[in-house]
């Protein structure tokens, strides 16, 4: 049995240490997946917390016994959590304020938590950071779900093609093709985004995808 299998068994039996190990190992992948899909870090952290709380609650019933199966399960929870997030936002009324908004909130687009997170930073740096975030999110959101999962598995979790193939239930060649098309799309989207950024240099305080569904 691979080491992860032992940790999974122990976690299923309710051992805290095993849960910690699994959490530490899979947090980067889950956070990376969610962060690449939502408009800001605070939302990414909220949704990541939600995913791992669900992991703690549901691991007793989990059937997966290997790393790929467990990663697939976690990413499935993450995908549903992100989908739920966007579903909820669709039902929220759009509020338009007649008062001039604080420039920091305007730049960040989301609440006081973000203001405190960016406190002490140069305003230009904040804008740049947020713009870059939006660029990444916009590009990754434009991919298909399978392409996203392949990128997360290959680039963030660092799995080989065979593991990612087991994770998403495809053959190795299909994973290579998905990986290639995903990076090609990202390349194209990022180049387009960069050109757009250059054209907007005159008005830097603008955000893309302010919480809307991509």
């Amino acid at each position, binding site marked *: 049995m691979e080491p992860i299998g032992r940790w999974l068994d122990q976690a299923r039996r309710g051992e805290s240490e095993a*849960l910690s190990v699994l959490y530490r190992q899979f947090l980067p992948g889950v956070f990376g997946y969610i962060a690449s899909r939502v408009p800001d870090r605070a939302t990414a952290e909220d949704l990541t917390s939600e995913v791992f709380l669900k992991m*703690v609650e549901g691991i007793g019933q989990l059937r997966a016994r290997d790393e790929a199966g467990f990663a697939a399960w976690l990413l499935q929870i993450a995908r549903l959590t992100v989908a739920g997030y966007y579903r909820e936002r669709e039902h929220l009324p759009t509020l338009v304020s007649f008062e001039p908004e604080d420039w920091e909130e305007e730049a960040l687009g989301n609440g006081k938590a973000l203001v405190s997170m960016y406190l002490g930073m140069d305003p230009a740096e904040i804008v740049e950071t947020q713009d870059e975030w939006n660029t990444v999110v916009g590009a990754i959101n434009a991919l298909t779900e399978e392409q996203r999962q392949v990128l997360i598995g290959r680039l963030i979790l660092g799995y080989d093609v065979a593991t990612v193939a087991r994770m998403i239930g495809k053959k190795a060649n299909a994973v290579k093709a998905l990986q290639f098309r995903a990076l090609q799309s990202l390349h194209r989207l990022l180049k387009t985004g960069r050109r757009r950024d250059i054209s907007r240099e005159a008005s830097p305080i603008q955000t893309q995808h302010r919480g809307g569904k991509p």
Partner: protein
Amino acid sequence: MKPLSERLNARLQRGDRRPWNSEELPAGPREPTPASDPEVDELVTVARWVQSRPQLQADPDFVELLETRLLLRHAALRPKQPARKVLSHPWRVHPVYGIALGICLLMLLLGTGVLVVAAQVSNPENPLYAVKRLEQHVQISLAGSPEGQAELDLQFAGEQLNMLADLADTAHAQAYRQALADFDQQVSAAASTIQGLPAAPDRDRLSSELATLKGDARHMLRGLLPQLALAERLLTTDELGRLGDTVPRLQSVEIVLSAQPDEHATISITGDNIQPGAQLLVNGQVVDVQGSFQNGLLVFMTVWNGDQHPQSIGILNPDGTVAQTTTITLKSSNGNGNGNNGNSNNGHHGNGNNNGKPDKTPTPHH
């Protein structure tokens, strides 16, 4: 030449194990490539750029905080998990275990239900009566001490006695016989257990309880006698005798037939506790004839007008107790006697073995 996707994968595969803490933005492939491949280079650069984005990396403080939250949540859930695990595990492992567990639970429920219902049963004709008796036997055998066993024997004997009162009619003859036999067995068991106890206050107490039970039983059974048919009366009289009551017992029966046809027969009965006014029973039927005591014998003079020989002769005391025998001696008034050597006295239906037959039998009174 390999397709682009293969070449790209080969490039990514080389030393691309998770550069998570690297803040530097990769400008291109890390390792020298054997040949220039601009298209693949560009995509590898994109991959490295995505990998290095700080936006996709979790903040260390957040990582710590969330871990603490998870462990707290896990600790809060933990007390609930064992019970759920016990129930859900067998179902999850294999459906056969689930089915087996289901059947076991069903049997347990049914079994418990049957035992509860059986405990209420008070009629031996009920199919659950056997379960009740079995339940009582198990309870007795599981009792921790002989004293406990004797107490249970007495308790169950008392229950059997109460049951008899409800069955004392001709409609429940079979059930009455069964309940009486069970009562007898229970009393005997109690007496035997108490007798085996060492001399101690417990033994005295239990002996006293047994004596009380026997007294109650005698009183109750005597009260039931008038409601019973002859067969049940015989059994009840027998039981009364075992309970220490005074009951009639027959020692001998002699029938002397008159030499002339269509004449009389004299039936002489010897025995104990035959009361004045006792009635004659021939083949289990009361014969309407007056008896008289002569020299310690109860003598009946009756018309002998039948062809059948008597299988049994008995008496019915005025108090309702009955005694009967199949041991009958037949004689003719000219001195020739034929023994009818049956057996079973005082309420037992013996099988007579007749060596000689009387010419006629008396007419029973229905």
